[in-house]
């Protein structure tokens, strides 16, 4: 076991899969010689050569288009979209092609690709380096969408994604790359060192896509979250004194319906937290689904704590970010209806 931050864990996942399977190739803007603007692919080109790890033209649509062709050939492309905000030029290839290929060819062709992309804010990145577009992808049938919250999961989920035969969008909350950020931006930065989930095996392991993780068992309210918000919600649970069960979904589609339903049926309350804009976000689906499945167990309205329905504002990002105080307030409101 080594201590790894998120970047190292993600790098290790690619390293391990490339080692085991010649068909894994890695490409994207700046990922080759330089190793990526966040250094996630550092060292891979040197180790596996320029034909397996390479820089691409700045054309997210071209990256995905070629990746689909490579996938159809039999490779397992792992591509980086430099920021999740820049995934939109590839939208047609993702939605109309990667997501549909297996179905429309009735299983004759498929595109076993993984799209890695850093998402989320809290780094003063402004509106085009801070978005969380997962809710756009979870609505698209045929795509899997994953977002880890810690190094251990990041590596295990990324290996599972790369080895998965379906296209997987793998969002990496960039605010977590270097430490388990809980939303207290005014406190000293934490690093991953010493965090239990930063103990990462060097070798191969997988975390099944579609399995949530209960990161804090509790009895009073179920908190559904993922990515950076997992740490925010843990902080909120401590600070509010509410005995919250915090569930890190990890995989948004497929999602672990059983774990969610079992928890809400037990607690009778549910708070959903994400950083993305509120209206039509993934939280809406979670809320609708929980309500459908657990209606008779609910003792309070399901709440959503989310980013506002505005672009992510550069200088106002701490007014935008759904931090622990807002989550704690929701937890307490939910408990008031006891």
């Amino acid at each position, binding site marked *: 076991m080594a201590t790894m931050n998120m970047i190292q864990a993600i790098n290790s996942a690619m390293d391990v899969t490339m080692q085991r399977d010649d068909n894994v190739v890695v490409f994207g803007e700046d990922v080759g010689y330089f190793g990526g603007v966040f250094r996630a692919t550092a060292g891979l080109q040197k180790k596996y050569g320029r034909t397996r790890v390479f820089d691409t033209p700045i054309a997210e649509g*071209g990256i995905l288009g070629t990746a689909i062709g490579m996938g159809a050939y039999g490779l397992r492309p792992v591509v980086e979209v430099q920021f999740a905000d820049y995934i939109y030029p590839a939208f047609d290839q993702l939605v109309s092609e990667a997501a549909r290929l297996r179905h429309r060819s009735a299983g004759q062709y498929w595109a076993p690709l993984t799209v890695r992309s850093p998402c989320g804010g809290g780094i003063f990145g402004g509106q085009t380096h801070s978005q969380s577009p997962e809710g756009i992808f979870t609505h698209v049938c045929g795509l899997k969408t994953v977002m880890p919250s810690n190094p251990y999961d990041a590596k295990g989920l990324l290996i599972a994604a790369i080895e998965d035969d379906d296209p997987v969008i793998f969002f990496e909350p960039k605010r977590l790359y270097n430490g388990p950020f809980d939303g207290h931006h005014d406190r000293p930065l934490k690093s991953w060192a010493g965090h239990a989930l930063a103990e990462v095996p060097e070798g191969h392991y997988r975390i099944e896509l579609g399995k949530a993780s209960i990161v804090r068992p509790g009895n009073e309210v179920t908190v559904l979250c993922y990515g950076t918000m997992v740490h925010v919600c843990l902080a909120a649970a401590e600070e509010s004194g509410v005995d919250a069960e915090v569930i890190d979904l990890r995989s948004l589609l497929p999602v672990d319906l059983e774990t969610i339903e079992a928890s809400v049926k037990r607690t009778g309350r549910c708070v959903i937290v994400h950083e993305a804009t509120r209206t039509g976000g993934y939280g809406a689906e979670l809320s609708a689904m929980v309500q459908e499945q657990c209606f008779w167990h609910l003792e309070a309205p399901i709440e959503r704590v989310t980013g506002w329905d505005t672009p992510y504002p550069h200088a106002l990002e701490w007014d935008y970010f759904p931090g622990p105080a807002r989550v704690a307030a929701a937890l307490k409101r939910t408990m008031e209806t006891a």
Partner: protein
Amino acid sequence: MRSATPLRLHVPEPKHRPGDPADFEGMTIPPAGALPRPDSDTPESELRAFPYGMIRVLDDSGSAVGAWAPDIPTPVLIKGLRAMALTRAFDDRMQRAQRQGKTSFYIKSTGEEAVAVAQALALDPGDMLFPSYRQQGLLIARDWPIVDMMCQLFSNAADRLKGRQLPVMYSVREVNFFSISGNLGTQFPQAVGWAMASAIKGDTRIAASWIGDGTTAEADFHHALTFAAVYRAPVLLNVVNNQWAISSFQGIAGGECATFAARAIGYGIPGLRVDGNDFLAVYAATQWAAERARSNHGATLIELYTYRAAAHSTSDDPSAYRPGDEAAHWPLGDPIARLKQHLIATGAWSEERHKAMLEQVDNEVKVALRAAERIGTLGSSKPDPGTMFDDVFKELPIHLRRQREQLLAEKLDGKGA
């Protein structure tokens, strides 16, 4: 202050609209045999005249002339002739089937059969094809059973695509024919990616893809050319310039400003412009580009200059936007007639054999049609509804399992739509 001319927007307009006489007078058609045939490893910088010329082999008398005249064994030419005729007969019959309600939709390739057929024959069977919806001739030239194609068109129980796809959107892995998309142009960069993969693995198979003149405007055209050029991908990128994109003439895609083959220049790859109704020219250009790709000299853009003689699809009526008899005036003639003329000129063919062949292909279509109809036509036979949940993912996740259960329960209850 300078004198300020008011600006004006230029909106391209075809020379002739319904009511006007059909006429292609402004069009310059270079004579057959005029262009030299450089070696297939010639640097792009020496090839920049090709996009402005036109590779033509068959002259008006049906003789193969000039440096591009390919050396094709007669049986291959006859196979090509037959495949084109079969494609045309198939198209005609399937259009009729659509009118009869046996399928919801059909797209013909009439007048441009040489493109798909000659290119399929010039490539190797292992080469991967990424077609648009108008290259059914590829499947036919690769001897894929037309009855299987009909089952797809009829979305019947034997449809290999399980009723999921719009008619004509075939996928046939067995003959390396990729899945056709309804979204224009997406296959172009996919073909490049497949070719890159082949190069990454040190394979010897190359890829080819086809889009229409109108589709060159889509982003994927640019992505394909950029990636193909940068990585010297072993791929043939074909633009079938059939003059029309539904109701828009090729000027709306930029055809008034330059040839589509000329787009290649800016990416530093060769652009060949070919008489698309000249089977021999299409074959020769394809062979040249394939040779170039196979020897690691990278991609070629081929503009196939032809004419969409039929409607865009069964949903379209071209008499609303172009002179009704324009097809008959197309100066490059008909690809079947021209190859036939050539074969007769060389003594390898005759009117009688041709007539017999046409009867034979008509019969082949009829026999296949009967077989397909026995299985069923649109609505009379269809895949099991529960199958629609398959292949969304490799395995069925829980939410789709639940949805399938719900559908099946509702079916039992009679609560379909």
